[in-house]
């Protein structure tokens, strides 16, 4: 059985983004929830599914359902880091296909910036982590830096190539009024921005913002009753690889290799049919490794693929068209914003940054330290 067209996305929305001091993780999710339902043309009373992931609070599923006043017949709190929401999309599709719910909302909210909540940077010193804890590797950036070091050594990839991705992504942000950083960026500014963990510089790293998002996922029969054109889930795959970077089997191959293969097979589309691509950019290296693992280029060719503006506005491979986690927003678990942007591109709602004639989009969410990945392929008919 396949999840192809098992569900459609009917509404998407962000909450306020950036620095939102007068907010909580609940208020931001409530904002996004209401806006996404309005976008879909649905009411709160239609919602019978809730999917949420966040490292906040005690039993987040219960807290958010209570706060919103929803008593869902289906709920999921799969937590695999920033990719959780791409996993949720597949899980919502399966639940809808099984008849467990008809209108499911995927939610995320974070106040990490204004509350200075740095929980994700703490390495535990118990269980498996006790074997990494003594060495002071900052998480997650240090783990991604190790992967970059391996790719550089194995394939001759350069900091200049990674910097070019940051520059292209910033150029997209310049076209998005909601993006946090919009000033043009140069390769030299990235290279001169200071080393965090070699070979990654400060501007190879994502933003640290507040923000929330919501995605309304509906059954095919609900989708056909709504005003806006449905954005169909054509294919989805997910894969887990490890928890700690020292346990990653090959630092140059991410679990996107497995999740991507499954999503492409389910969707029945080929790489050259993808019009727009939204790939988790916690760090520049994340995108490079993901593109290779998904098969958009061969192993070792990611650096050349990203160089010289190819992924920026006007380039042949439109990538992270909202400005990405590098320049638009990154409230800790960025994956929900990949879905929001892909849906807007497929609906033609992106104004200055609209990719012409976009009908099929690929989303790739990464979580942990290259630990989890889900690929989703969306299309408008």
């Amino acid at each position, binding site marked *: 059985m396949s999840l192809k067209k098992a569900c459609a996305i009917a509404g998407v929305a962000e909450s306020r983004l950036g620095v939102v001091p007068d907010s909580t993780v609940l208020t931001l999710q409530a904002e996004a929830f209401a806006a996404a339902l309005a976008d879909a043309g649905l009411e709160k009373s239609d919602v019978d599914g809730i999917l949420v992931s966040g490292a906040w609070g005690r039993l987040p599923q219960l807290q958010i359902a209570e706060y919103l006043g929803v008593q869902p017949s289906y709920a999921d709190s799969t937590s695999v880091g920033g990719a959780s929401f791409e996993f949720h999309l597949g899980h919502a599709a399966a639940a809808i296909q099984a008849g467990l719910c008809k209108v499911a909302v995927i939610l995320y909210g974070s106040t990490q910036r204004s509350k200075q909540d740095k929980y994700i940077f703490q390495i535990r010193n118990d269980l498996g982590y006790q074997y990494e*804890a*003594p*060495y002071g590797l900052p998480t997650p950036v240090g783990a991604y830096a190790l992967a970059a070091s391996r790719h550089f050594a194995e394939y001759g990839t350069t900091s200049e190539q990674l910097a070019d991705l940051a520059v292209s992504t910033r150029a997209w942000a310049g076209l998005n009024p909601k993006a946090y950083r919009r000033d043009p960026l140069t390769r030299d500014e990235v290279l001169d921005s200071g080393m965090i963990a070699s070979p990654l510089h400060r501007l190879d790293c994502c933003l640290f913002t507040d923000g929330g998002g919501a995605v309304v996922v509906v059954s095919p029969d609900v989708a056909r009753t709504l005003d806006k054109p449905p954005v169909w889930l054509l294919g989805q795959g997910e894969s887990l690889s490890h928890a700690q970077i020292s346990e990653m089997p090959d630092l140059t191959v991410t679990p996107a290799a497995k999740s991507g293969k499954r999503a492409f097979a389910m969707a029945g589309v080929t790489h050259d049919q993808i019009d727009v691509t939204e790939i988790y950019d916690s760090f520049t290296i994340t995108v490079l490794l993901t593109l290779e693992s998904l098969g958009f280029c061969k192993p070792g060719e990611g650096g050349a693929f990203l160089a010289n503006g190819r992924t920026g506005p006007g380039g042949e491979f439109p990538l992270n068209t909202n400005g990405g986690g590098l320049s638009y927003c990154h409230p800790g678990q960025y994956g929900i914003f990949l879905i929001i942007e892909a849906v807007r591109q497929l609906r033609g709602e992106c104004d200055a940054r609209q990719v012409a004639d976009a009908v099929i989009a690929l989303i790739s969410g990464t979580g942990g330290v290259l630990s989890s990945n889900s690929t989703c392929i969306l299309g408008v008919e």
Partner: protein
Amino acid sequence: MANETQPIDPDGDPYWAGAAEGELRYRKCGACEASIFYPRAICPACGAPDPAWAVSKGAGSIYACTTVHRAPPAFADNAPYTVLLVDLDEGFRMMGGLAGDANVAVGDRVTVTFREGPDGRPAPYFTPA
């Protein structure tokens, strides 16, 4: 960090006891011969329970490395410092610190040494071979 104590647990206790004696211990599966690190109560390759303990010669090569400039607060006084992933010759990979401030690169040969970790317990670090 000095006042933090690493937990002692059934998986880790023999390992840390080995480190205190200058021995790099890992586990070796009797069923499938896999070298297992970090130590655990099951073979992650074949699922066999309770793999045997073994002692590594401590020689290997650098699989990946990074020099940390912006360190977590507990490590800030030491920055910059280098963290390694090392492939030991017995066929397992582990994280380690670089002892000293030599320049190292992926592929370099290293050998294990034991230094006091941030919690005061000896932990494996590596030096260029």
